[in-house]
């Protein structure tokens, strides 16, 4: 697995992955414009653009962390696209053949690649938060009291929120890995993944609101946006981890046992 991880690090030098970081930062800044400028007296749900907190909620210690979490849907789109391009590209370029000959332990090959992508995503989220947090301070302007964001509790919430965003990006990545391995095509995996995140799950929740408690996309969004209820957050984390494990195990089994004919 370490061999695959190290091999993947060379691939991650490609400009595509720098553009990926830039895209996440851009989406984050757009989200913050919606989330932290000119808050109203009551919270409002803007769908994929996130949950805009009330002024009181925004000025709370976790106001910044929860606002940063609003990027999770867009983060999911970028992550799905990058992971699909990474793994779907192996089939498109035929590099999956040479990789599987050089490292014939296919489970280790896929897991090593996934771990390297996880590392890249963690760096992406940390860099994005490092840029977005001071940007949020500037966007909030003098009209919003941000003193509690930078207190001990606020910084702890920011770190927890960053961790949640990293976990969310990893969960999206596992879905991307599964789709790319199943479909063996980057465009197909991106299309199916984004269609699932946006219209399919949103419509499913409209039709059956209770489904939000177990649909993978809804759980990931809920995890990243955080909340006051620690017990509910822990439950959400277990749900996300379960889906991620199912996706990763499924992808590994398919990759391990299916002939490589591309």
């Amino acid at each position, binding site marked *: 697995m370490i*061999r*695959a991880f*190290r*091999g993947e*690090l*060379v*691939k991650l*030098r*490609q*400009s*595509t992955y720098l553009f990926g970081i830039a895209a996440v930062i851009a989406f984050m800044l757009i989200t913050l414009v919606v989330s932290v400028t000119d808050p109203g007296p009551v919270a409002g749900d803007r769908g994929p653009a996130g949950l805009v907190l009330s002024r009181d909620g925004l000025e709370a210690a976790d106001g910044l962390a929860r606002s940063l979490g609003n990027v999770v849907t867009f983060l999911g789109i970028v992550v799905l696209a990058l992971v699909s391009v990474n793994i779907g*590209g192996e089939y498109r*370029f*035929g*590099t*999956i*053949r*040479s*990789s*599987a*000959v*050089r*490292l*014939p*332990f296919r489970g280790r*090959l896929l897991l090593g690649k996934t771990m390297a992508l996880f590392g890249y995503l963690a760096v992406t989220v940390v860099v994005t938060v490092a840029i977005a947090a001071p940007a949020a301070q500037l966007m909030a302007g003098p009209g919003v009291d941000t003193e509690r964001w930078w207190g001990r509790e606020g910084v702890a919430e920011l770190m927890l929120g960053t961790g949640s965003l990293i976990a969310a990006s990893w969960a999206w990545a596992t879905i991307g890995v599964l789709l790319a391995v199943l479909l063996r095509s980057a465009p197909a995996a991106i299309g199916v993944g984004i269609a699932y995140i946006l219209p399919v799950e949103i419509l499913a929740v409209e039709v059956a609101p209770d489904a939000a408690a177990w649909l993978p996309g809804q759980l990931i969004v809920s995890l990243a946006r955080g909340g006051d209820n620690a017990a509910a957050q822990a439950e959400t984390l277990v749900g996300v981890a379960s889906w991620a494990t199912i996706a990763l195990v499924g992808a590994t089994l398919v990759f391990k046992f299916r*002939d*490589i*004919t591309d």
Partner: protein
Amino acid sequence: MPMDLAVRTVGLEKRYGERVAVEALDLAVPTGRVTGFVGPNGAGKTTTIRMLLGLIRPTSGTGEVLGRPLDRPAAYLERVGALVDGPAFYPRLSGRANLAVLERLAGTRGGIERALELTGIDDRADDPVGSYSLGMRQRLALAAALLGDPELVVLDEPANGLDPAGIREIRTLLRRLADDGVTVFVSSHQLAELEHVSDHLVLLRAGALVYQGLLSSLLARRAATITARPEHAADLEALARIASDGGGHVRVRDGAVSAAGAGPAASARLNRSAHAAGITLAELTVAAPTLEEIFFGLTEDGAR
């Protein structure tokens, strides 16, 4: 004495539903030689190579590669270098970086420069592969196959896209590998190239084995074509009669008599008989059959 084999399969078969891609293949690839793997498109060459490399699972059959069972490719692939179904690289990465990915996957190190040098692309190694010509990608794929000093090199159509000079270089390289004790198993539809470089040959048609053995044995199986041109055109008919008496398929064309499939001593016999009949030969040539002619002969008439 049994031959030392790098690859041996028994009844190797791959089916996709009703379609048979490779049928009951008993393959024997000798160690330390260049073995040419020939067949028309769709004959099952690439499928066979993929099975040997663990990329696809055989429907049935057994085998060994470098003394290890075919169903445990991880046990032998670290000693195998391969080019399968054309060059495959990350186009935005440089040639050197592409090789670095493969070297890291294999868990080896230090072989990149030598592989680049052997295949003659060291001067473009830092350019993105997307800017390479097909011939350069083919060379890079060969470099990739040579990483890690493999004992067995499996190459699927390595000369595709190369110019004549490049093809000659590849031929020299394959010969040098075999001289160094590396087993080379190379598929190609460029039969003339295999004729120049192979010691051993495997011919496949419609997934089934047509011939395997020494190239020289195969060439000897088909007799040469003798062409005799009399000094005087008036002797042509008489010369054709004499040639017919020697056996083989005789044809008169362009003022000459050609006898295909005649035995090894036929040219001397024809010369003697013509002389005895008072016919002076202005030309007497013996043309050995090319591998291509033999190949088409075998694959078209289904001979084994």
